[in-house]
């Protein structure tokens, strides 16, 4: 406000003031995220090269590559492999189930649609641990699903096995796939699809050439929302899985809370983070070319 009236560069002064206001508004969360996110992230990177101590808290001395080398250990690789394919499988299955489901909801009349949507919102907002626990009960040796399987002569108790973990992941993350897909399908301009029906005649072709590409943003968002937490899953495998179904999440927690090997835990965490960043970047860039 000290700029003399009538001189040029008033505009520059007002813009500077505006930028200052923007920065000031963001500053509290900016500082917060630097202190409680960016710096901790750097710490994890640094700890990957630190050495292990008996007390749990590692010594920031004797820098070495032991922990990083552990990444190539066959146990770790096996766990990483298992986690990755379970997460991928879960993402694909969620997509296959959720797409027709979201499509069905999005193409109902408005009143019905809102009602159906509300019914999706409830599991979405329901506590994740509670929903996982529900399967712990169903899959138990005398749980309903087990008894059903035994009655049909098809399966026994799946608890503490890979299929149980897989069911838990599917159940846990399916709502994360439905909502972005629904949002994308709901926005589709149906006159385009009509036009395509005229051009291609076959409904399937029109769907593949028009509807599917138009809803790609929803597919990408949903896939990321499912894949990331599936890969880092901890609660689900811990409750429904057993020793043979350790995933990366459990492995890391184990390194910190049981084995007290922080450097290895840090190195694995960093590895997951890096893989995740690369995967999401590539996926976003390519526009999610799974189709």
């Amino acid at each position, binding site marked *: *406000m000290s*700029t*003399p*009236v*009538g001189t*040029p560069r*008033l*505009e520059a*002064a*007002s813009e500077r003031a505006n930028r200052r206001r923007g920065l000031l508004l963001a500053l509290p969360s900016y500082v917060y995220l630097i202190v409680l996110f960016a710096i901790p992230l750097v710490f994890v990177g640094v700890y990957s090269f630190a050495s292990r101590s008996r007390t749990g808290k590692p010594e920031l001395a004797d820098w070495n590559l032991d922990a990083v080398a552990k990444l190539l250990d066959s146990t770790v690789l096996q766990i990483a492999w298992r986690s990755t394919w379970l997460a991928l499988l879960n993402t694909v299955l969620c997509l296959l189930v959720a797409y027709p489901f979201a499509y069905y909801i999005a193409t109902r009349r408005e009143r019905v649609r809102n009602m159906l949507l509300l019914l999706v919102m409830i599991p979405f907002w329901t506590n994740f641990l509670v929903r996982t626990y529900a399967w712990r009960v169903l899959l138990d040796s005398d749980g309903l699903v087990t008894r059903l399987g035994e009655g049909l002569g098809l399966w026994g108790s799946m608890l503490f096995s890979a299929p149980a973990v897989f069911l838990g992941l599917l159940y846990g993350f399916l709502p994360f796939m439905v909502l972005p897909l629904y949002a994308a399908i709901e926005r589709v301009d149906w006159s385009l699809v009509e036009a395509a029906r005229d051009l291609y005649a076959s409904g399937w072709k029109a769907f593949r050439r028009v509807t599917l590409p138009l809803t790609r943003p929803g597919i990408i968002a949903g896939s990321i929302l499912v894949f990331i937490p599936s890969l880092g899953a901890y609660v689900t495998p811990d409750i429904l899985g057993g020793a043979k179904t350790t995933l990366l999440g459990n492995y890391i927690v184990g390194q910190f809370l049981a084995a007290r090997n922080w450097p290895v835990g840090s190195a694995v965490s960093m590895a997951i983070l890096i893989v995740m960043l690369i995967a999401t970047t590539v996926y976003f860039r390519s526009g999610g070319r799974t189709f």
Partner: protein
Amino acid sequence: MTAIAVGIHSVTKRFDEVVAVDDVDLEISDGEFFSLLGPSGCGKTTTLRMVAGLEFPTEGRIDIFGEAMGLKPPNHRPVNTVFQSYALFPHMTVAENVGFGLAMRKVPATEITERVHDAIDLVRLTGMADRRPKQLSGGQQQRVALARALVNRPKVLLLDEPLGALDLKLRQAMQLELKDIQKEVGITFVYVTHDQEEALTMSDRIGVMNEGKLLQVGRSEEIYERPANRFVADFIGETNFLSGRVEESGVVRLAGGQLVRAVTHDPVGTEVTLTLRPEKIHLYLRAGDVAPGMNTLTGTVHRRLYYGDSLYYEIDFGFAHVDARVENAPRQQRFEPGHEVIAAFSAQSAEALAE
């Protein structure tokens, strides 16, 4: 001498590379109905926003009643705006919208109620005070926007294409109403529009803009009868252009070789364009019928267009085609395509504009 309500002095506004307003000088008098007229994108809104304080000039200064505005924010300026999209607060009733400015200035509640009531009456929305903007028609929303600004008794009211979103009939009715309201409240109106008819009928003075530049300022008749350049002549109303060269002061030689008398401003030898409004051209079959002292050109009727209240004849002079407008009045002579006709016009109606 009346006071200068708004003084815009050498104002330029740039958005990165785009020059939205280019070195504009303009003084608007107190109590005036002033229109800024120009095609879309010419910088009208930007000019208005700088007066309101929503944008600051890159160069130059803006005064309101002699006081330099500088970096004064909008809430400290004695002006109010009627926004193009109305910008009514959707979460408030009509009365709350209209009373917003008064409430912000800490006017006592009883006075607010009274003034809001009066303002709502003024724009003829009596009984709608408790509605929400969404429950109103476009025309009614427009009136709320007007009341919301007027109720503050600003020294200057800025209106950005306020009738742009309304249909033709309503727009015409609102034009008259706006003009009446302005007379009643006696506030300076700065009115932005791209509709030339609207500007011509409502304004005391008009400023014509194009590509950020203020091309001409004047009363409606001046702008229409004496356009300063080709753009103004073309943009305001309909016109014909005939190219030629200044032969001597007040005389132009057309491209076809004919000499005509016209209003000239440029030295002998200058290449000029004559602008000639269709309704200023009179058509005759015989030379004897032409009033003395008129310019005449002979041509043939190329085409005739029937407009109901008038007829347009497209006349071919060989070197140019010209449209002439003839009132569809009783006993008015009709011409058929192929007829040879004499087009007559006065020297005063032909303005010679330098390229």
